[in-house]
């Protein structure tokens, strides 16, 4: 390496990097700034300081109801995705049979298929079948779009497991299931947790499926937020946005601690 002090190109690189990060974070910092304004409307720059909007929002049944509904929905979706996704990953990684590629393509295709269109196709199906239970419909839709993530993360950790270990256990007398449970399962738990958490987060943030399937009695948080944007003009809306960002921050920390962010995204 040449040592000539700080070079011009380094300044350009770091400077532009800093500006781009600022651009990336700007809309995530702004709601916090707006939410403490002691004014009846959202104003910039904020005037005064108050936390009354947080108190107001946390007592608003529209917000708290949607929040808890979204949590329940996402837990169901993550559970369904794990139940459906883990055996699928095991089968796709461990078995060799004709049509394997086809099954793999089928199960992973919701990842590249436009989610908005998946939602339309589901709505059409549910209308044709007369299935009007919004909660069930939402769970099915969310399991559909979150299962591929579990399949991906669990497959990735399965590929790192040495199949010889499981064979050794079977040679020593363990049944196929016991060998899997006591030898392979502990090694793929990381991938499973990563997949389940990511399924939860994806479901919690999902808009493109929910927008077609929700009804007045089952409103996920993103839909509630959209409707509040058009009818709530006080800083309470900024407080809601700030609370949702805090929630995401908790999820980011959990994901990074438990699984590693890059691994979850498989990039």
């Amino acid at each position, binding site marked *: 390496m040449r040592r000539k002090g700080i070079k011009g190109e380094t300044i350009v690189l770091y400077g532009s990097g800093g500006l781009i990060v600022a651009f990336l974070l700007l809309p995530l910092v702004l709601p916090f700034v707006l939410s403490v304004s002691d004014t009846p409307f959202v104003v910039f720059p904020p005037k005064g300081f108050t936390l009354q909007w947080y108190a107001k929002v946390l007592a608003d049944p529209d917000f708290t109801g949607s929040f808890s509904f979204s949590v329940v929905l996402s837990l169901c979706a993550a559970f369904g995705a794990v139940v459906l996704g883990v055996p699928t990953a095991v089968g796709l990684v461990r078995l060799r049979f004709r049509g394997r590629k086809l099954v793999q393509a089928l199960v992973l295709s919701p990842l590249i298929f436009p989610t908005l269109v998946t939602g339309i196709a589901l709505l059409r199906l549910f209308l044709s079948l007369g299935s009007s239970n919004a909660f069930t419909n939402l769970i099915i839709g969310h399991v559909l779009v979150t299962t591929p993530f579990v399949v991906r993360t669990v497959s990735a950790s399965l590929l790192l497991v040495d199949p010889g270990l499981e064979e050794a256990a079977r040679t020593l007398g363990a049944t196929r299931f016991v060998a899997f449970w006591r030898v392979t399962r502990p090694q793929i738990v990381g991938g499973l947790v990563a997949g389940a958490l990511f399924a939860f987060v994806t479901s919690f943030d999902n808009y493109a499926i929910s927008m077609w399937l929700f009804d007045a009695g089952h409103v996920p948080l993103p839909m509630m937020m959209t409707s509040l*944007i058009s009818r709530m003009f006080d800083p309470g809306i900024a407080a809601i946005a700030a609370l949702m960002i805090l929630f995401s921050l908790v999820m980011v920390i959990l994901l990074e601690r438990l699984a590693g962010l890059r691994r979850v995204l498989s990039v």
Partner: protein
Amino acid sequence: MLTPQTSPPASRSGVVIARPDPREPRAAQWRLWLASARNSLPAIGLLGPATVFFTVLFAIPVALMIRYSFLTQSPDGTITGGLTGAHYARLVNVDLYRHVLFATLRISLFTTLGTAILAYPLAILIARGPAFLGRLLTVLVIAPLLVNVVVRAYGWRVILANGKSGVLNWALAKLGLGSVHLLYTEWAIIIGSVQVFLPMMVLPLSTAIGRIDRAVEDAARTLGASAFEVFRRVTLPLSVPGLGVGCTLVFSLTASSFILPSLLGGDFTKMLGTLVEEQILSVFDWPFGSAIATVMVVIVLAVNIGASAFFERRTRTRAMEAS
């Protein structure tokens, strides 16, 4: 076709070939079939549920929706058979809808270009900067991905708001510059989409740059290339695989997005996503809505297939030139 009748005598040239028992092939077939059934049991047990789930709730509904786009709906809402391409023709022939189609392609293209330009500095810093900075930047780039798009769109609404209330206009006024009118224009959607989809470009790009052998860049530098030339002639061409993945992702996601055009484009600037929502949930025109949705699928598939063909060929020719 070889049949038992045409087979040569078994004992020609003195070699005795045991004639198979006529019942044998059947029994063998059965044994084979049983064995294969036993072998396929784990496959059915492990993959059966997901295969059924994704076939019944994904593949079939999508096929039915595509079929719907060729049917006719009478004013009272009943669907009649008889296949027609009229809905596709309407999307292209009616000025309003064609405008939406082109706006979608234009916005997706500009968003892809914008993310590619902004992604390089970050990707280079992640791949080549100090390790702690790379980790920090990775978290900072991924974290916004997990924040709801509605929340991010809300942030942009406040920043880009027209008139004096917008943060951007406030800043411009402080600097003594004029005001801009951005919210509810294509530019608002592009700016919001660039921010929302930037991580999808940075991550594959930083992976690709991380795979480039540092020795190649060092060699170019030793031979007298300036930092910009190293980037243009070494880093940029060798990062093309990552760029291809990123462009495909960003273009597909922008072209099929709903919430960003809905909150940042409003009623004034529509994209296919907002048009399809309006046609299905407000107008209840299912065949036309299905046709728009099908066009979105075609765009996304075309970009995916086209990009992988294009970037793969490029990578291959490069590899051949290099060898």
